[in-house]
């Protein structure tokens, strides 16, 4: 104990706490404003703490934004299902089944991640206008999944390449065909990859603004990001309600960070750092 404290002086912890506090100040401020009474929003100097907290903002969220939260949840989950259903078998084909042309495919997936979302949004708009898919939840799910699918395939490929070949051969010896091997050996072993891919697919779909604001702007069901945006446009005086919506929209990120932090880190570093 004493050895550790001599090697890791307390001032480093103090400095670390200070840096974190500075970094997270905007997040605190969002929370603070969400609890501030409308009358105090224009106070000069601003109130640093919500001394007299109000739930006005949150009541407005509950009254007006519940459908939007539901839509976002639906879009996020739909995106997870679609992404995993496409990426997991593809990763298996590239990593274990020696898919012909896998080098080219890998290359295309990397290129796909570089295409700006605004360009994809225009292309999707042009396609959806003809098919009548504008302002539909299904159309938004498909568009949102384009952010996650290339990442998902690359992550599954990297992960599944690490599964020992002997295991798959053992399954084959036991009489399992390729599909059986995939379902009962490869998929269960790839649980961590599935968690990471699902987490990011959900978070990206939940946070998406570009596709929502272009493909679903007049829909009956708009996601929460668009809910916030329309809020800003409509009543710029009600910043406590806007910030309360923002706090609520941040809940999934917070939950995922607490529950699955190591998968977040794994996802961020995947592809960027090789070892």
């Amino acid at each position, binding site marked *: 104990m004493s050895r550790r404290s001599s090697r*890791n*002086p*307390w001032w*480093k*912890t103090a*400095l*670390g*706490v200070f*840096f*974190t506090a500075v*970094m*997270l100040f*905007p997040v605190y401020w969002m929370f603070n404003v969400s609890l501030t009474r409308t009358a105090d929003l224009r*106070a*000069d*100097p*601003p109130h640093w703490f919500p001394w007299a907290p109000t739930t006005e903002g949150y009541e407005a969220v509950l009254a007006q934004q519940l459908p939007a939260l539901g839509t976002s949840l639906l879009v996020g989950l739909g995106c997870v299902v679609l992404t995993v*259903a496409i990426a997991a078998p*593809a990763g298996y*084909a*590239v990593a274990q*089944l*020696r*898919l012909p042309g896998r080098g080219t*495919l890998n290359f*295309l997936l990397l*290129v796909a991640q*570089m*295409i*700006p979302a*605004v*360009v994809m949004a*225009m*292309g*999707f708009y*042009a*396609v959806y206008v003809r098919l009548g898919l504008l302002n539909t939840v299904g159309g938004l799910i498909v568009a949102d999944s*384009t952010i996650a*699918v290339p990442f998902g395939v690359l992550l599954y490929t990297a992960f599944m*390449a690490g599964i020992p070949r002997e295991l798959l*051969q053992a399954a*084959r010896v036991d009489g399992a065909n*390729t599909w059986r091997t995939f379902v009962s050996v490869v998929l269960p072993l790839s649980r961590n990859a599935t968690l990471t891919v699902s987490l990011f697919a959900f978070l990206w779909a*939940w946070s998406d*603004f570009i596709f929502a604001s*272009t493909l679903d702007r007049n829909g009956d069901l708009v996601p929460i*990001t668009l809910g916030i945006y329309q809020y*800003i446009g409509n009543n710029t005086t009600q910043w406590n309600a806007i910030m309360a919506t*923002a706090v609520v929209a941040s809940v999934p*990120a*917070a939950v995922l*960070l607490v529950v699955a932090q190591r998968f*977040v*880190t794994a996802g*961020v*570093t995947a592809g*960027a*750092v*090789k*070892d």
Partner: protein
Amino acid sequence: MTTTEAPAPAAADAPPGRRTRRRRGPTAPQWAAVGFAAPLLVYLTLFYAYPLWRNVDLSVHDYTIRAFVQGDAEFVGFDKYVEVFTSSTFPTALWNTAVFTFASILFQYAIGLALAVFFRSGFRLSPLLRAMFLVPWLLPLIVSASTWAWMLSSENGIVNSVLGAFGVPQINWLTSPGTALLAVTIANIWLGIPFNLVILHSGLQSIPGEVYEAASLDGAGPWRQFWSVTFPLLRPVSAITLLLGLIYTLKVVDVIWVMTTGGPGDSSTTLAIWSYREAFGTGQPDFSPAAAVGNVLIVIALVFGFLHLQLQRRQEES
């Protein structure tokens, strides 16, 4: 990742079926592979290739919203590109994109690296604090952008209030042409720090501790150790981080759009914002020039993208 091609000895005692791979034409296992990849191939064709093709198509026709629905737009060749390149917005947008992108990645990287080195020493609470640093990156961009917009607001913003306490006169961060680009860049730097911190921190983990022990035996202080050990050994990871940051930052729309919508005037308009504004930002959508700007942006992104791939390949070889 690197183990994909590794088990050469395993291939030797693989069932005979695998060895026929050397022959021309796909074998049965390869057909199985194609089957497993089929959903992805269909997906990429329908939801990547086709929208991108439609986008090229938009840029060489004169699409109005009416022609959009009826599908009878006039073919105009490269007219829209000429229109874009000669527009007075083009030089401004290009310059803003360059400033926004380079300032963002430079500061994100510098701050991220400093923090990564700081967190490397593993003091008490450091894993917890490092995890909390991820928060800004996980929040929906629109949440962060609207929070920054309120913090930077001219009359009621906390930033002006703090600066005012030090005697600085009110700055109209988002509404004056001189500071709008600076304001969105600051917000974007804040957003990118977590990504840089996580990647650089995990890059630091791969530098063996003995290198530092040797350096400190040779009498190198922390400053010297950073410049002669950490920085050179981290160079491959740094290059990838900077290039990924570049590619991400080029396409940023949400942050700028929510904070300033590219204004006032064109003062914080980047290429991505310009494209978004032409197509979706005004009451009158003008898809053809928007698609042309978008395609110019793709070309720029791909140039840096190929640089990234080249760099990655060279690293894999070494």
